[in-house]
């Protein structure tokens, strides 16, 4: 479903955030990406969401080379990928309801269908009672969960999440990860960047580990975790 072939990303500033990265995530797989701060996890996800373009290498999603997409095709591609951003990216002047409904509005879903689906998505993250609140009236963890509801509401075939539990307590983090597992079980391909080694170990999912933009061999990565 997702293939990275020797992908490098050098930012204008001169940083090589990714250096010749190759990996594959199968259709319907759930894959974690770990690594220290600045390792390139967010960069990897940004390339997938077409927020950035690779400097070198190729990214194939669902058999399609992202480098070959024309500008006009990008919106449609993006609707196929649900993204949970590390900084939430909620609209501060819109209610929780409106934020979660946005992908449906953009996708042209009939209006009468929207409330039911938004309700279901908020239910999933336990925030149905905050439907009318504005994002600033929420705690950071609640904001993060609204972001999760928004990413899953249009049931995209691919879900990518950048540190979705950074502001959640361990119990809630576990629940959110279980939610991702359930979505994964109905066939959605899930890619999650996370620092939470304990949690990843507990879930028993496959993970890849980055350091300074390169893949760390699993043996070494595993060793590093044992120490924390």
């Amino acid at each position: 479903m997702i293939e990275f072939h020797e992908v490098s990303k050098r930012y204008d500033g001169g940083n090589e955030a990714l250096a010749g990265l190759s990996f594959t995530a199968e259709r319907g797989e759930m894959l974690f990406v770990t690594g220290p701060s600045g390792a390139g996890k967010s960069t990897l996800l940004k390339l997938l969401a077409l927020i950035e373009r690779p400097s070198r290498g190729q990214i194939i999603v669902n058999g399609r080379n992202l480098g070959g997409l024309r500008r006009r095709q990008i919106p449609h591609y993006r609707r196929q990928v649900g993204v949970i951003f590390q900084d939430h990216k909620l609209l501060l002047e819109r209610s929780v309801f409106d934020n979660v409904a946005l992908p449906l509005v953009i996708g042209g879903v009939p209006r009468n269908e929207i409330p039911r689906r938004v309700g279901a998505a908020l239910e999933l993250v336990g925030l149905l009672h905050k439907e009318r609140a504005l994002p600033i009236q929420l705690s950071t963890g609640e904001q993060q969960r609204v972001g999760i509801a928004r990413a899953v509401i249009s049931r995209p075939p691919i879900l990518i999440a950048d540190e979705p539990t950074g502001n959640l307590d361990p119990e809630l983090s576990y629940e959110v990860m279980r939610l991702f597992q359930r979505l994964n079980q109905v066939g959605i391909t899930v890619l999650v960047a996370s620092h939470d080694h304990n949690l990843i170990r507990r879930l028993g999912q496959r993970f890849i580990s980055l350091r300074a933009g390169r893949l760390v061999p699993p043996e070494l990565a595993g060793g590093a975790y044992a120490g924390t």
Partner: protein
Amino acid sequence: MPARDSGAQVSRRTLGQRFSAYLAHHRQTLFDGLQQLGRQPLATFMTVAVIGIALALPAGALVLVNNARGLSAGWQGTARISLFLKNGLSDGTVQQLADSVRAHSGVAAVQVISAEQALVDFQRRSGFNDTLSLLGSNPLPAVLVVQPTAAYTAPAAAQQLAQSFGALPQVDQVRMDVQWLKRLQAILALLHRGVLIVAVLLAIAVVLIVGNTIRLEIENRRAEIEVSKLLGATDRFVRRPFLYHGAWYGLAGGVLAWILVLIGLALMGGPVDQLVGLYGSHFSLSGLGASGVLGLLAGGIVLGWLGSWLAVARHLRAIEPT
């Protein structure tokens, strides 16, 4: 991802359903724009006031120029041609001549001043009562005062008309009062030039103001645009609310401009009446008229829409997260 149940959701919808969702979004965006203006009444008022003022000035200037045209048409009376006839013509001959002059296509009216009448006038105006009564005979000729039609009011045309009458055998001398006309036309040319400069400046100002407002609004809503694009919104989807917003601004500015022009006309009424009174002509200021008002409102909407378009086009790409 054709066969997948969850992903095909969006594209599986029928065309009809999608079109009605599209229309619903249009409708909602239209009224959202209005609501948004209402949410910050002071800020909205400030922007609308600036646009209104900028629209009112060229509209007002247009009204004034139109009125000045009407006024100068009312002043045609000044462009008289006086035909001094040869001495000793009988009253009948004078009347006959007057009729033939009146028949000319360039002539609107002819007033006959007989020799006797001329003498009385001259005595009254010069104060030479005693002196002239010493004269045995009336030294003054009869005069035909010719009022050219509108088409012959311009100095050149009037001159030509005067020449043709000067060629008549009964006519001794021709005099024409073109001085005042030249002055008036010079003043109007001056005003016209001034109004043009002002109108050009203000048309630029309106586009800049709306563009500027929308530009800053885009900056303000940068996050919204960015997030929408990240969620797969097309450029058109993102652009729509700004265009409606600009159009609303323009419409509101147009309405305000209309009101300002009405107030301005009311304030100008006094001095105009005074001026017109001096010329004894029948004239009252005319307003924008129905087509003018419609034009003003439509112009406001179009300029607002245009300003938004320019601002959005320039900034949509800049915000592009790619």
